[in-house]
């Protein structure tokens, strides 16, 4: 059993936007498939500030994942400019990008992407290993992160001994353990049933309340509803940028 979670807040909290974290300008992405070229992004502009809770919406194939991978410094744009915390990502060397992925960004994938042979604790400790945190502090912080996502009693379970929702919680704990500036989640509920998906979204709500900045990619209106701002993508372009709650 996972620890009970607080219900989705009926009166939703709202934190005023803080400093600029992400700024992209005219970003394009081309994929070359033999003779054919796929324009996954055709010139996207967006600014994201601390304390935002943003959903990127759009139909399948609209370029959501491509954009998200770029924001997560996992992929590089073909054209345009991406500044993270005021620094142009194109000018960063590999090690700086690794550092950003390690300390500034927590990435949550649709397919969890946990190390299958390591238990929950070790999976959550891993970013701290690469951050050079010592074993004792690492363990303590990983345990705390697991407790925070309601998995305090599952720390020695391997991914295949956990349910889908629990796996995603481990992945979220891993994304947050190094206290990143921003949490990126690409269809975090895509592999979960709707009830479990709601639980994960409740967790995101709670994380937002705790002061995290969150970007969620989804193609489901129900999921996007949780966010304070929704960016709609279509065919590689931003169609609309709305703030329903504001």
């Amino acid at each position, binding site marked *: 059993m996972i620890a009970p979670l607080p219900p989705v807040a009926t009166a939703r909290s709202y934190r005023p936007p803080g400093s600029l974290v992400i700024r992209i300008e005219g970003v394009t992405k081309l994929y070359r498939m033999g003779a054919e070229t796929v324009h996954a992004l055709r010139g996207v502009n967006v600014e994201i500030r601390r304390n935002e809770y943003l959903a990127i919406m759009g139909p399948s194939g609209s370029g959501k994942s491509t954009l998200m*991978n770029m924001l*997560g410094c*996992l*992929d590089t744009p073909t054209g345009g400019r991406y500044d993270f915390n005021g620094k142009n990502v194109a000018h960063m060397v*590999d*090690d700086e990008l*690794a*550092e*950003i*992925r*390690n*300390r500034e960004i927590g*990435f949550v*994938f649709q397919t969890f*992407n*946990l*190390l299958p*042979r*390591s238990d929950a604790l070790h999976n959550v400790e*891993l*970013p701290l*290993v*690469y*951050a*050079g945190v010592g074993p004792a502090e690492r363990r303590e912080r990983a345990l705390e992160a697991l407790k925070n996502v309601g998995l305090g009693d599952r720390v020695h379970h391997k991914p295949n001994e956990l349910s889908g929702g629990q796996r995603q919680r481990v992945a979220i704990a*891993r994304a947050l353990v*190094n206290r990143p500036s921003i949490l990126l989640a690409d269809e975090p509920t895509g592999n979960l049933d709707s009830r479990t998906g709601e639980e994960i979204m409740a967790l995101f709500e709670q994380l937002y309340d705790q002061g995290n900045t969150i970007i969620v990619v989804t193609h489901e209106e129900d999921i996007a509803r949780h966010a304070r701002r929704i960016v709609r993508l279509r065919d590689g372009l931003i169609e609309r940028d709305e703030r329903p709650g504001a």
Partner: protein
Amino acid sequence: MLLSEILRMAFRSLGVNKLRSFLTMSGITIGVFSVIGVMTTVSAMRGSIETGLSFLGVNMFQIGKYPNGIQLSGENRRRVEQRRNITLEQAQRYRQLMEGWSDVVCLKVFNRDGPVQVTYANRKTEPGVNFGGTNEHFLAANQYSIEAGRNFTPEDVDLGRPFAIIGQDVLKRLFPSESPLGKMIKVGSRTYTVVGTFAAKGSNFGQSQDDIVMTPITRFLSDHGAARFSITIATQAPSQEVYNETVDRAITAMRMVRSLQAEDENDFELYSNDSLIAVFAQVADIVRAGALVISAIALLAASVGIMNIMLVSVTERTKEIGIRKSIGARSRSILMQFLIEAVVLSLSGGMVGILLGVVTGNALAVWLNAAVVFPWDWAAIGLLTCTIIGVTAGLYPALKAARLDPIESLRYE
């Protein structure tokens, strides 16, 4: 990132594929085992072989029809076998020629007619006693000493008296509770009076040196047919300084005795403790070189195996690499992870090889009555080689892993 973290990761992932890791390691183990085993055996045996081969007294060299301690092959063996025997007359001529320069010249000959059994009253020895004829210089030549009774005198030898000096093994068998001196022992149908006993010498190459009966050489030859035997002559140089000169004189004297013309080659062999040890050293070097070649080949094959397994591992773990990179692993950390894995594979294979090699080599040494050794130098070289192999074989796969694109590798299934 700390080395201890990387090591932990390496052991963790090698533990996942235990059988594969073990098989990959075993190539290295075999390569290291063969060289360490041989080196251990050779160094363990060197001491005992050197004392074993040093049976001659100080500053002594020996002349005989056959070279000692060397296995001759085809051509050479035939040439040596065609040589004339060194007869007693020739040996005595040689002795006369050396007189005034070297006074310690031992003539000796040993039985070649199969196992010898010595009997006294109703007691008898095991068959296989060393039975031979010699003169008063046998003690100096072969490093024996008299325990009871006396040595042969020149007179005993000149007159061919039927006397015998017996070793401790023979003594214990035939005279467990009485003095052997003056007693008549029988070798075959011949009877000899015991005039002395040799002090114990222990064994050499697992063979007792106390299982011996010596008689005056003249007596031995007349009893057993002089024509069939070739005499071996041991000569002692008066001092180390004149050793080489003595050898030169001995060769000249021997050539005269053998009536060789200026153009003829020596038809006898001359050897010393040192030359025998040198022959052993040469054989040992060949064995070592052989072991090195074999292990080099095995290690080369093993390092190809490691590289192969590491490449497979990088491909299989593409997703894992993507995950690690996505949470902030630097390329260098990934490189080190795979490199250390290869080094751990290779080094643990090497350590097992060293362990097995030392154990096997020493077991062999103990079996051959040699002292136990640990070849630190070869173990160190082995570990260093394994490290180099691990780095070399692991470098390309590790670079390949480190250079993987994070998003491409995350997509890999």
